[in-house]
């Protein structure tokens, strides 16, 4: 309780507990290609929040309605190491929501040229598995997760495929990409709009909107939390998200 009151007090005074401006991200560190066994990978640190995304490619049967397109699967796991309240077990609603919103940002921006991932129409296409694992949760997992996923895709290579077999460790080229989507999550506290909440801030702020952005366009929106925004907030939120997305794009 004490911490929650302190966070509120600081916010009410127009400041944040770590001294940042309301529209300021924590220090972002992106490291790519950190897992040799993955076809692509990246670690993202947003302050103390740490997320690793790994991309694995596998040969799959395509969906019947898109017989010549690769398949994208995004999965998220909040590892039990990442926070004392995380327990092992099947994915919870927060993990599923995070994975599905990142999935939409990547899918709707057409970030991956899935149409170039066909091996044999109706029979074999590449499946792109993006696994997002949270190593330490100090808030704003959504933005960190999308950064990590996009950064990992940037360095993903397609394995060689010969005589119906994947040759792991040897590659035929890069994964063909079209866009670099990022997600900016804008929170509302009183009449103020914040980005990049720390965990302590998330405990007391229950209204957030995640906006997926690429090339100046919006590709995903997800309002979160048990609060509401006003109709007139919508433009403010969109503008803030579009502005901050420029910054995020640069760090990838």
């Amino acid at each position, binding site marked *: 309780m004490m911490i929650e009151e302190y966070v509120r007090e600081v916010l009410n005074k127009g400041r944040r507990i770590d001294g940042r401006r309301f529209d300021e991200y924590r220090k972002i560190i992106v490291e790519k290609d950190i897992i040799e066994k993955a076809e692509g990978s990246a670690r993202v640190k947003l302050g103390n929040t740490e997320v690793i995304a790994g991309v694995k490619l596998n040969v799959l049967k395509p969906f019947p*309605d*898109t017989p010549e397109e690769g398949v994208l699967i995004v999965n998220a796991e909040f590892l039990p190491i990442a926070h004392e309240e995380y327990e092992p077990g099947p*994915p919870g*609603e927060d993990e*599923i*929501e995070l*994975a*599905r919103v990142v999935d*939409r940002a990547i*899918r*709707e*921006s057409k970030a991956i040229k899935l149409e170039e991932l066909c091996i044999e129409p109706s029979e074999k296409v590449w499946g792109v598995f993006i696994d997002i694992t949270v190593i330490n949760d100090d808030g704003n997992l959504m933005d960190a997760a999308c950064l990590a996923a996009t950064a990992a895709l940037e360095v993903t290579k397609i394995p060689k495929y010969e005589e119906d077999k994947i040759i792991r460790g040897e590659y035929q080229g890069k994964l063909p990409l079209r866009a670099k989507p990022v997600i900016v999550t804008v929170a509302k506290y009183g009449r103020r709009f914040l980005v990049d909440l720390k965990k302590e801030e998330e405990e007391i702020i229950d209204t957030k*909107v995640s906006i997926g952005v690429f090339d*100046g*366009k*919006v*590709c*995903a*929106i*997800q*309002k*979160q*939390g*048990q*609060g*509401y*925004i*006003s*109709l*007139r*907030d*919508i*433009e403010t939120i*969109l*503008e803030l998200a*579009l502005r901050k997305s420029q910054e995020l794009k640069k760090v990838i």
Partner: protein
Amino acid sequence: MKGNVELIIDGKRLDGRKPLEMREVEMKVNVVRNADGSAYVRFGKTIAIAAVYGPTILLPKHLQEDKLLVKVRYSMLPFSVDERKSPGHDRRSIELSKVIKNALAPAIMLDEYPRAVLKVYVEIIQADGSTRVTGTNAASLALAMAGVPMKDLVTACSVGKINDTIVLDLNGIEDNNSQADMAFAMMPSKNRVTLWQMDGQLTKEEIKKMIKIASDACKKLYDMQKKAIRGAFK
């Protein structure tokens, strides 16, 4: 594939509607006798039944919080879709349950029921697009009928972009082939937005335009909701 299917011909949608025309909407309350509150909402062929049980004391004790815990479960009946859906909660249902919970919670006076739980169930009887907003409307009515104290009703609709045209209330084939679709809910008397989801590609200006259309539509639906409630007390 999205966007390649011809969905608007001579200014009319495949089911004959104009771009900003809703499907036929039907709303009924008290459709599940055992429930504390319940409602049926139909948008064209999309049918949702919602029922509310509670608030009741939450057990075991160590799970109690100092405000009402709202549990929402959205699911689709096996025969509600073209290809039979096997029973059980899939990832999509889990996400939508959370989204609907977050759409309803801002309207509920949670502080009035510490240590209690409220169960809201949304069953999609038939699915032809816009199931989450249809279900949200039904759940909001069911809450009201259950006598749960609320700041306002929650009213929801969908809006999307098909064949470069902005349309209201997407049906199934439009949803599957849209350039963008947006789910939206608000407390109409206060202009408070409680559900906002989008996938697709849109500019900021398009979004603003769609929000205007959606909020106008919600106000009409709001009148229908109020009428359905009043009807029950006639």
